[in-house]
């Protein structure tokens, strides 16, 4: 197990800044997830850590020793960092066993053979050894790519969108299995994904990136509940958004009064974010009156679009099914005020400049 630390890392490609001022710390044995929209620089950060690309500035340290910095650049083959590629990058001319053995050139031949067998065994794919990559399905190739990255026992494992080439149910199954393997190997891991659900589910901590910078780092649960910026709030899940003004510590919204929270002064403009799951829905009783306009059955939950006085957009509500409401029905809405997220209006403006560097609590 090794710790990884990145300070002030920057990268330009063709004169354009791809990454700037990146600081990142990953604790030994931790699974860290880099998440962000495509093009935010997360894959580039991974490639810089692996040593496939050279940074323009900044430092990368592994257990305190410098991998990249001013006048220092350790070639990727010297780093002891494993990288699993999005397209798996299995060598098409080598069998699965030979693919694994490729990274074990420093071991004696018998030792390498034993390691290949052992690793394949641990992942439950020993029978793949004599096959060629093209003879395997996508899920099987993914497993081989993981085995190949793990076989040299790297000190840090990097995974670039490891599940994006799989679809649907297979993806979920492979994801759970991969994570349990990572826990078993107890290896420091950085995983890149564009899927916020995958990020909060897979990682010990999540780092949100945007436009070549890190926006915030924290535990998935904290980022979802206290995202720190409107951009992050929208990124990690759908929101109903309302504008309002703070009056006596509270904000009036079409869904009723909610607490403005600390640090908001009297008369200040705010934006209120309410997650679709933070709203209680019933056919009658207490709460704000509304009328069902849309109804989507989504399996485990049901989603409603509800017309409410004072809101130009339909209010989105998700409730565990079954819910006995149909379009045209009248209903009552009750907001769980403890789970409401309030931003000062200026956060929006700051956010559009991707500043300031908000860090959620619990990091």
């Amino acid at each position, binding site marked *: 197990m090794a710790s990884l630390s990145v300070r002030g890392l920057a990268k330009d490609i063709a004169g354009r800044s791809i990454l700037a001022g990146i600081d990142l710390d990953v604790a030994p044995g931790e699974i860290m997830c880099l998440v962000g929209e495509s093009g935010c620089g997360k894959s580039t950060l991974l490639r810089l850590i692996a*040593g496939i690309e050279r940074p323009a500035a900044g430092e990368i340290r592994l257990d305190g020793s410098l991998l990249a910095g001013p006048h220092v650049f*350790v070639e990727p083959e010297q780093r002891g960092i494993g*990288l699993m*590629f999005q397209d798996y990058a*299995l060598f098409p001319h080598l069998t699965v066993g030979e693919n694994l053995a490729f990274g074990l050139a*420093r071991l004696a031949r018998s030792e390498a053979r034993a390691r290949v067998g052992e690793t394949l065994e641990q992942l439950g794919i020993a029978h793949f050894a004599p096959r060629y990559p093209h003879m395997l399905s996508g899920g099987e190739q993914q497993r081989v790519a993981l085995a190949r990255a793990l076989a040299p*026992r790297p000190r840090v494992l990097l995974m670039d969108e490891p599940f994006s080439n799989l679809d649907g149910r297979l993806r979920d199954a492979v994801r759970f299995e991969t994570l349990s393997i990572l826990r078993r190997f107890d290896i420091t891991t950085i995983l890149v994904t564009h899927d916020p659900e995958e990020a909060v589910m897979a990682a010990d901590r999540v780092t949100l990136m945007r436009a070549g910078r890190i926006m915030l780092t924290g535990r998935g649960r904290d980022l979802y509940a206290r995202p720190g910026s409107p951009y992050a709030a929208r990124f990690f899940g759908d929101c109903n958004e309302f504008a309002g003004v703070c009056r006596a510590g509270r904000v009036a919204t079409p869904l009723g009064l909610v607490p403005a929270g600390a640090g908001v002064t009297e008369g200040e403009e705010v934006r209120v974010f309410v997650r679709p799951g933070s709203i209680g829905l019933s056919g009658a009783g207490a709460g704000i009156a509304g009328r069902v306009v849309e109804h989507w059955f989504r399996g485990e939950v049901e989603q409603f679009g509800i017309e409410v006085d004072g809101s130009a957009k339909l209010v989105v509500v998700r409730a565990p099914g079954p819910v006995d409401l149909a379009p045209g029905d009248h209903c009552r809405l009750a907001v769980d005020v403890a789970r409401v997220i309030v931003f000062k209006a200026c956060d929006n403006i700051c956010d559009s400049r991707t500043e300031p560097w908000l860090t959620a609590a619990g990091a």
Partner: protein
Amino acid sequence: MRLDGPVAVGLGDLDEVGDPTRSGIRPALGWRVAAAAVALLAAAPILTLVVLALDGSVGLWPHLVAHVLPRAAANTALLLAGVGSLAAGIGCGTAWLVTAYRFPGRGVLAWALILPLAIPTYIAAYAYLDVLHPVGPVQSWLRWLLGYQSAREFRLPDIRSMTGCILLLSFVLYPYVYLTTRAMFLTQAATLIDASRTLGASYGAAFTRVALPLARPAIAVGVSLVLMETLNDIGASEFLGIQTLTVSIYATWVNRSDLAGAAQIALVLLVPVAGLVAAERFGRRQRSFAASAQRPRRLEPRPLGRTAGMLALALASLPVLVGFVVPAAYLAWSAWARIAFAGLSQGLLATTWNTVSVSAAGTLGALALGLIVAYAGRAAPGRIASLAARLSLAGYAVPGTVLAIGVLYGVGALDRAVAWAASTLAGASVGLVLIGSGAAMVLAYTLRFLAIATGSVEGGLSRIPPSLDGAARTMGAGTLRTLYAVHLPLAKPALASGAILIFVDCMKELPATLLLRPLNFETLATRLYGEAARGTYEDASIAALLIVLVSLLPVAVLARLGQDGR
């Protein structure tokens, strides 16, 4: 898994990982140095020429300007203009016919039109001198047909003329235009042709007003290649008595032993070469732009009526007949007659062995250097790698004679230094080691066909996703191990086809071989040249047939590509 045995292996490298002295740019530096060395070697002949020409005795220059250059330059210009336009016409016309119309024999002609590429220009000239000789088969038959008795009463115009040379070169070189233009016609949007028809243009007008203008970049590339080959040609123009610049270079060196004069003419020749290189590059840039802007829906060929179909068949067959069938059939027939009369001579076998061995050496040399240039572009991209890539094209762009003069001078100086060192240090007389051993010739092959090697290695490498490099590197392989364990096995097919192309080109090579071969060393090409120059027809037809047969290999590959490509 906790920190147990296997993990400790990984940790053992820790000091290595953290040590800045071990880190850094060494692998990339190695590739850069190698690429720089190749770049220098590739540029050396041209630089030598410049030095040599500037250094040459000024006394000869006025003579050249007064007596040699004007005629040679005029001849060359005329030849280029004639061959360029005729080959462009034949190439575009046949490409449009087989792409846009359906007629009997179209499927066969589509690939048969490439066949003349298998006939080197000097072999075509050699064959036609005999076929069209006043007492040769064609003229005899014509006289018999027309009822004349002797060659004095009736004869065709002499092929040994500018017109003859232009016709001959055009009919064997047009496939360069055919190939590039047909590829363009095939990828052109059929919708554009349809659109022009709805706007009132006839099918024929759609060709001249839409298809042809769109294909201009491809035509420019094809014609540039044709003209480079024309400049390179030495056999055909000499056999047909046309004193071109290329022939003058050879004559100035061989007849006058005036290397500086030859270098001066060679420098003059570099001017049109530079123009052609620029035209070719421009064409390629435009072509990729034009092709990428269009949807590749194929043009549906239009059926032709019976008469029109027969006419199309006749028109499109003519270049194949003139450029391939007639000379190949003549060579086969006369080779057969020679073997029946004298068997295979010992000398011819030795010549064949010579050809194969120096061609193999040249192929290996070119592939090795090409590998360095192409791989440096991948493992250590930057200014040096791209400079090396550009300079590796130099040998292919300049005529073989020009390259040979540059090599001759450089290697000659080296030889004299070696000889001097041997005689002063060891008191031994070693002669001219590098030229005498054929090393100079192999070096010329290497540099001349380096472009093909670089191109095929680059092509092979480009199909290997860069993530494989990253995977190999993160698993502890350096660039060298990545090269031989990952790239070479995956690029093998591309390397093999590159090797075939280079080998065949080495076997056909005449101008540089003539200048650089050791005394009494014959390849198939020089043997044919010698016999044709002396007018003694012995084993030449067999040598020519061998060259043509071997040359069919890459042509077959090209034909297959054209069939299932697109």
